[in-house]
């Protein structure tokens, strides 16, 4: 019984919240409350919503979708619409019932057609069509009387100034409520649910107002809610919020505003365009974006529904995990030098900008031994060339002879090469290989780090080197596409400090090698059941390493539960997700680091390793100003974000790794980063495969107990 009641209340409340693209029950309650400002009117809305949901249930539609309000919200709108145009009589309710059934049937049909053929959302099109049909039909129904103007039960104590009153009226207009109080209640609900949504609605409103003033347009009646909803949909619901999405949202608002006038002219006097301009504008833009050829990071479609803030957070998390799926390493053993990088002055120009040339070096930075007159003198010549990531060999060429040092072969530009397909539209090409050294053939699967040939001096190559580029087709000479490497060690020559690059591009003259697995295993053993006991501030906690049924490794703390999911691969310990309580030492540990290269002296990496990590600011990291975090989401609309940039340093000694973290709060602006305040410095020590202690500003807060 309680379950049924909760199902009912969820369905009802969410039918209201879906009008503003939300699944939040509190938003739904606010909207419901605002509709009851004129009780008779509000009642129609409830009736419509419940009827349409009930019919969906009766004919067997997905119960979870019904519970989310996806079948109810069009019914609510229909009910509110009919309740607005006609006075409340039993006949109206009968017509409304039929209308709700119609709306549900139309929801099913239009959703299906739109999704399958357009990959576009149906939104409130079912409501539009159903209401038009009922309004048209009702012209023949004599018994339905036009509604008399109704007075709101209560009103706002004061009259808001222009244009705020227009804004509030239009928000209310979404629900066919024209009192500023309704609009005010909905605005409060929206403010609680998503600040970005509110900002987008205001932006859309101002855009529409701007169009009106600029073009001396006639009064759009109360249809200005169309541009407002269009801005919300494009700016934060269907696209990840950001400066480009904001611009597109304004475009959508302007488009919707123009369409409002077009519809007003096209439709007959007694038929209102309702929400057609909004639906049309949004569907046009979303379909176009789905069918585009080049996708850019600035404008990204969301993959699911959520508040704009949630979409933003999910997008950031996805960006991180996408990096992990395809790890690209450098195609050689040991330390090599980047002799030409992206936009290199010699040959990496135009279509082939995004490419690297690598040559092997010795500890003193020499590229060749002896006089350097023959290929054999060069350290790179004859060295194994590796696949930079997992894939399948697409195309190879052998038989092009090596050039003598100093001369090039421009007929067979790429020399002997190996092109590997890593995923559709993503191929790597290693060129200038030694003739007769290809070890793989087309169709053969290869693993990251597997030798595919030897470095040579064939093709347009005056000195033995490896040319590496990524391209979208398997054709040699195809234009290069940008990419990032993962998990590299850069520098380490006598003048440069050794730096760990978790992801990024390389620059000319950098000395680089892949991170490799340590002999003595990972920082944390990836086996279940290892337990450590800690003292965190004044309380005790236990950590246990575990593996979940899908195979994800994590550490969980007790008694306060925090879960720290991690990956330990290629000698790099990465934290993927933290869930649960923020009051534990485990949370503090997880919030202090994102990646740790597993360096230990046995690997010959002696000396201190440095690296940088940038993470979006999280309440726990800043620890002092939670309200600022909500502000930071709004700022992301302008391309501004709060970030924590941390400088890490690790000094390995036998069996121990000492890490210090120097975080700084930064403001990420479209043109660069502005450092703000320095945050408390942290230090931690790893020994025997466990965290020994963690200190903040010199005070130990977490200590392992035996």
């Amino acid at each position, binding site marked *: 019984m309680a379950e049924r009641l909760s199902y009912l209340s969820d369905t009802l409340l969410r039918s209201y919240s879906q009008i503003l693209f939300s699944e939040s029950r509190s938003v739904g309650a606010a909207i419901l409350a605002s509709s009851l400002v004129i009780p008779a009117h509000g009642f129609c809305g409830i009736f419509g919503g419940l009827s349409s949901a009930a019919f969906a249930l009766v004919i067997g539609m997905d119960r979870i979708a019904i519970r989310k309000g996806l079948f109810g919200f069009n019914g609510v709108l229909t009910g509110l619409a009919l309740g607005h145009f006609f006075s409340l009589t039993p006949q109206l309710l009968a017509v409304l019932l039929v209308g709700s059934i119609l709306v549900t049937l139309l929801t099913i049909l239009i959703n299906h057609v739109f999704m399958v053929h357009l990959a576009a959302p149906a939104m409130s099109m079912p409501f539009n069509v159903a209401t038009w049909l009922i309004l048209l039909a009702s012209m023949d129904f004599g018994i339905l009387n036009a509604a008399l103007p109704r007075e709101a039960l209560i009103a706002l104590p004061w009259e808001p100034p222009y244009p705020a009153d227009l804004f509030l009226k239009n928000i209310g207009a979404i629900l066919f409520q024209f009192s500023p109080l309704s609009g005010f209640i909905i605005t409060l609900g929206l403010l609680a649910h998503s600040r970005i949504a509110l900002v987008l609605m205001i932006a859309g409103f101002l855009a529409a107002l701007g169009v009106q003033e600029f073009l001396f347009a006639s009064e759009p009646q109360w249809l200005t809610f169309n541009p407002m909803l269009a801005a919300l949909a494009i700016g934060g619901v269907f696209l990840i919020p950001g400066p480009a999405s904001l611009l597109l949202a304004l475009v959508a608002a302007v488009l919707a505003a123009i369409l409002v006038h077009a519809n007003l002219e096209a439709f007959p006097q007694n038929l209102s365009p309702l929400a057609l301009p909004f639906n049309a504008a949004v569907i046009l833009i979303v379909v176009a974006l789905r069918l585009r050829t080049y996708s850019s990071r600035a404008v990204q479609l969301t993959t699911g529904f959520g508040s704009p803030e949630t979409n933003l957070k999910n997008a950031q998390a996805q960006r991180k995990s996408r990096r992990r799926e395809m790890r690209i390493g450098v195609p*050689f*053993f*040991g*330390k090599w030098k980047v002799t030409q990088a992206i936009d290199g002055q010699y040959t990496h120009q135009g279509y082939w900008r995004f490419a690297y040339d690598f040559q*092997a070096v*010795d*500890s*003193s930075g020499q590229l060749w*031994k002896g006089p350097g007159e023959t290929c054999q003198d060069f*350290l790179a010549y*004859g*060295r*194994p060339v*590796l696949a930079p990531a997992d894939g399948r060999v697409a195309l190879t060429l052998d038989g092009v002879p090596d050039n003598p040092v100093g001369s090039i072969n421009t007929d067979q530009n790429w020399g002997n090469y190996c092109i590997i397909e890593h995923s559709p539209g993503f191929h790597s090409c290693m060129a200038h290989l030694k003739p007769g050294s290809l070890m793989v053939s087309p169709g053969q699967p290869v*693993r*990251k*780090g*597997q*030798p595919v040939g030897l470095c040579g001096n064939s093709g347009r190559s005056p000195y033995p080197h490896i040319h590496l580029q990524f391209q979208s087709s398997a054709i040699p000479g195809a234009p290069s596409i940008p990419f990032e490497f993962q998990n590299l060690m850069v520098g380490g020559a006598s003048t440069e400090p050794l730096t760990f690059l978790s992801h990024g591009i390389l620059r000319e003259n950098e000395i680089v*090698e*892949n991170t*490799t*697995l340590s*002999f*003595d295993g990972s920082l944390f053993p990836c086996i279940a059941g290892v337990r450590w006991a800690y003292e965190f501030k004044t309380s005790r906690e236990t950590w246990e390493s575990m593996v979940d049924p899908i195979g994800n490794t994590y550490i969980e703390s007790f008694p306060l539960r925090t879960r720290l999911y991690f990956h330990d691969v*290629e000698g790099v310990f990465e934290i993927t997700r933290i869930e649960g309580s923020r009051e534990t030492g485990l949370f503090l540990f997880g919030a202090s680091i994102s990646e740790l290269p597993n360096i230990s*002296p*046995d*690997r*010959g*990496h*002696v000396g201190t390793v440095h690296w940088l990590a940038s993470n979006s600011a999280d309440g726990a990291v800043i620890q002092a100003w939670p309200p600022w975090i909500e502000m930071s989401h709004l700022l992301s609309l302008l391309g501004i974000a709060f970030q924590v940039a941390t400088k890490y340093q690790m000094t390995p000694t*036998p*069996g121990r790794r000492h890490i210090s973290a120097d975080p700084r709060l930064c403001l990420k602006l479209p043109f660069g980063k502005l450092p703000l305040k320095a945050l408390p410095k942290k230090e931690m020590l790893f020994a025997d495969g466990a965290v020994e202690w963690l200190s903040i500003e010199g005070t130990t807060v977490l200590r392992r107990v035996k």
Partner: protein
Amino acid sequence: MKRPYESPTISRHQGGITNKFGVGVSNRFQSEIEGFPISKLLQEYGTPLFVYSEKTLKKTYREMLDAFSLRYPKTRHAWSYKTNYLKAVCRSFHRLGSWAEVVSGMEYEMARANGVDPRFIVFNGPYKPYPVLKRALEDGAIVNLDSLDEYFEAEEIASQLRHPVKIGLRLNMSLGTHMSWDRYGFNIESGEALAAVKRILAGRKIRIEGIHAHIGTFVYDVQNYSTAITKLAEFATALKRDFGISLKYIDIGGGFASRNRLRGTYLSTADMIPSFDTYAEAICKPLLDGLTSVFHPEELPTLILESGRRMVDEAGMLISTVSSTKRMNSGTRGLVIDAGVNLLFTSFWYDHDVLPTSDHGYSNEDHVIFGPLCMQIDVIRPTVHLPHLEKGDSVIIKPAGAYNNTQWMQFINLRPNVVMISENGKVGLIRRAEDVAYLQERETIPEWLNG
């Protein structure tokens, strides 16, 4: 400038057989080591004197690492303690990132005392008594078993320990022209090695983690390494394919030749001794080729090198002073210097380079160099062309870094000072000269000899 006096010499001509290299004369001498005048070193530290150069040691290490790291993804060097277990020398290697390779309980304790993590101590050798083996296995060292007897003891130890015990197997094999040292480990061709693997798997107490083969010493024909590593790779592949054992390491041992002249060879060291690149190519290419069919790139076993001689020989030098001169009956000039086979044990097999420490003019006379011991066989060089040296002149003998400070004798003379010159030019004493009290420290007189 006044030219140094060159005494007239009488050389006996031998008819019939002509020396195809002709008679060469040179004016080679070395008066300083990395900027330090040898005369000053002798003044401060006495004679004879061992001198080590940290700079040379580091340079050689980097060359070795460069050569191998370009050719194989995971290479580790384990410093061979038997080559030189002076603490300063060992610690210099460990600071560069070397593990330790020991062949006895004594060396094992030395490595532990140097702060080496037992997980990075490779314990080889045919003699591992029970308590020594137990300690090593308890500590988690990398123990390569030499015989089934050793395995049975290890099995017993494993049943007492709470943590899993992992070992490696020493293997020997035919190298084509000759057998690798066949007294060590299990033979591959006869099937002995495979039988040992099966026995270990059946015992279920011990995991096989690696294989090891040390094929010889001063090996200058790299084909031997290629053959050895090919057979090791085949064995590793068979273990993975047939038993599912994914080895964590393959240890190719040491034996790389240093630039010393092996007695009985006639080519110059420049022509005969391969570079690190040549060794690396001979080892890494067959290894990679042999393993990639069954090992994924991230599973490839670590390649462990135990090179000792090649790493340290050229970093060490011995300075000695002429104490008397003779004219032998054959007409050859003889020099008696204060360092003999008691300090330079390797002179039994090698013709070290001997250079005067100041300009005495051209080397125009054949000499034989004797040490200070009263043994006819105490000869550093039976024949060497040197200028006319007198009593009090000193010579520098090199390379002397490998084996001489482990195989030196407390015989007839006390062992002298050993110094090291750091990379940034500081001289430090790393071993003090011995005295009689030190020599007799461990002796006791039984009561019947008292009074």
